[in-house]
């Protein structure tokens, strides 16, 4: 199943990227998390009839891309998922709201179309922003950030364990699926009769295995309440990053800086 291959590759890719050494990966994960959250909040708070303001928000993303030297290739693929979801909800807007507000050439533009465009842009940018966050942070550091805002260690352990086990299971599911499809060549999915036994037996096996993993963690001194308490407070570079990014986001959101620049070129 291609989906599984894709998922495995994606996790490896993100793990690999997060280990790269550059300015962004070294910054305190919590600072990055807060900035990303701020960006998404300011982005989604944009009015639905203002696509141009959404477009301005891309400046932050471009900045991060340049500073973090992030490749966009993998990111494009993730946009597909979000596009379909947003499209399902958004497609209704141009159908229902046909109130014409402008005309480009001979094509009338309705406010429904505008609000749909805004929705699509918001969807893409939000996804890119969180992609940039995780690709420069990685799962471990993300967990450290969660611990810094006092999320209980138990929950973080569960999250990290799920993340660890996912690859193991994806591979296991892939093996089972291969074995299954070799004996059932003309089936697109798994037959009804095999649902329970296929997943159920995998589950039972895994529970025993998982107990062992956790035992081995405990034997090596693991304690969910203290493990993620790593001492990395805010240092200068984190502060600079934080203030700089927050300033950029707020400026591009609230100050019509682009109109000022544009006016110089357009209306002279």
């Amino acid at each position, binding site marked *: 199943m291609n989906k599984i291959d894709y998922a495995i590759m*994606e996790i490896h890719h993100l793990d690999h990227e997060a280990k790269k050494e550059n300015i962004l990966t070294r910054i305190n994960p919590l600072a990055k998390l807060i900035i*990303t959250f701020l960006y998404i*909040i300011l982005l*989604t*708070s944009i009015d639905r*009839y203002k696509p*141009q303001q959404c477009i*301005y928000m*891309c400046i932050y993303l*471009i900045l991060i891309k*340049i500073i973090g030297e992030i490749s966009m290739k993998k990111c494009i693929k*993730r946009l597909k*998922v*979000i596009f379909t979801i*947003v499209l399902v*909800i958004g497609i*209704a*807007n141009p159908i*229902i709201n*046909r109130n*014409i*507000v402008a005309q480009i050439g001979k094509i009338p533009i309705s*406010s429904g179309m505008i609000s749909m465009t805004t*929705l699509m842009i918001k*969807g893409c940018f*939000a*996804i890119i922003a*969180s992609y940039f966050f995780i690709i420069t942070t990685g799962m471990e550091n993300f967990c450290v950030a969660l611990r810094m805002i006092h999320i209980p260690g*138990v929950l973080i*352990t*569960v*999250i990290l*364990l*799920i*993340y660890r*086990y*996912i690859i193991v*299971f994806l591979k*296991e*599911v892939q093996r089972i*699926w291969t074995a299954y499809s070799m004996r059932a060549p003309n089936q*697109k*999915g*798994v*037959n009804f009769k095999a*649902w329970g036994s296929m*997943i*159920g*037996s995998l*589950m*039972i096996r895994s529970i025993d295995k998982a107990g062992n*993993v*956790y035992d081995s963690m405990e034997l090596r001194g693991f304690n*969910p309440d203290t493990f993620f308490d790593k001492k990395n407070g805010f240092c200068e570079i984190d502060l600079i990053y934080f203030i700089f990014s927050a300033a950029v986001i707020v400026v591009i959101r*609230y100050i019509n800086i*682009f109109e*000022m*620049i544009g*006016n110089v*070129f357009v209306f002279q």
Partner: protein
Amino acid sequence: MADALVSPAVGITMYAMSGMAAVYSIKKLRQEPDFKKKIPTMGVMGAMVFATQMINFTIPGTGSSGHLCGGILLTGLLGPYAGFLSMIGVLLIQCLFFADGGLLALGGNIFNMAFYGCFFGALIWKIVMQNGISKRKITLYSILGSVITLQLGAFSVTIQTLCSGVTELPFKMFLSLMLPIHLAIGFVEGLITMAILNFIYAARPELLWSDGHEENKYIRSGLSYKKTMIIFTCVFFVIAGFVSLIASKQPDGLEWSIKKITGNTEINAKTDSKNDLDYDLKNDVNDDLNSSLITGTKTDIYENSEKIQQKTSLLPDYNFKNSDSDLGTSVSGIVGCMIVIIFLTITGFLIKLSKKGKHKLNE
């Protein structure tokens, strides 16, 4: 739910609700005697749900396929608290690593999928399994649970999307689209859950939740559980009621609260949202108006809509009154933005080039 489909106010409210449920779950989980032994199982179950979501299950009789959401399954194996926490993990990883959902929408997604699936699921489990577990009861629980919790989830997705003001779909129509789709999805999920739970029941019944031999403890915990469920439901309905009240009677109430958070002071947004929400509510009136718009020829579209606006002042008036100046600013804005983008791209390119040059010099 994606980030684009929720407004900050709705997103943060849902974070608060899910957060409350999570804090409560952790507290409850810690009270269980062997909770540390449950941690690895929670991890495995979460990962399993994640991995099985990748498998397409063929639905007998039709050519289509469905997959798993997981809340009901996890509750049947781990109980509501542990199940809820593992679902949080699954949704978080999906949102961060596979762009399924979004950071802001995560709170809502946890609530719509995990909260209903686990907490309401547990309630259904308790009712169905009152006098012991059997194969038939598991089937009943799986299908009933999946259908009910998915309907609830779909219902709150509808409310959250409407409160966020991103869609122009009227409430009833949106709901009538969402519920039937999720009825089908819920049924399929129920079938898959049933198959898995029944297999585990046959092979290792002790892995299922709330073992029969602790009957006394079971009843005691059931009482406190009921209480909490009532509290949670009340809280939810109070908030939902409050939100819908604001939305209907004072249409700009929501926007106002967003503004309070973000400090947005634009007036246009205010009038817009007011009109749109009115529009949603009084869509009956609008149907007539819309049909008149559709039948109108191109030349009198402007006239038509302007007339309608004057008559009813129901439709969004953005860009109408002073459309020229408004359009002008957005054009220059976009031009300005483009210039900055080009500037940044060139700078980035130059930085890359200089780095490469350095590398070569070093070599």
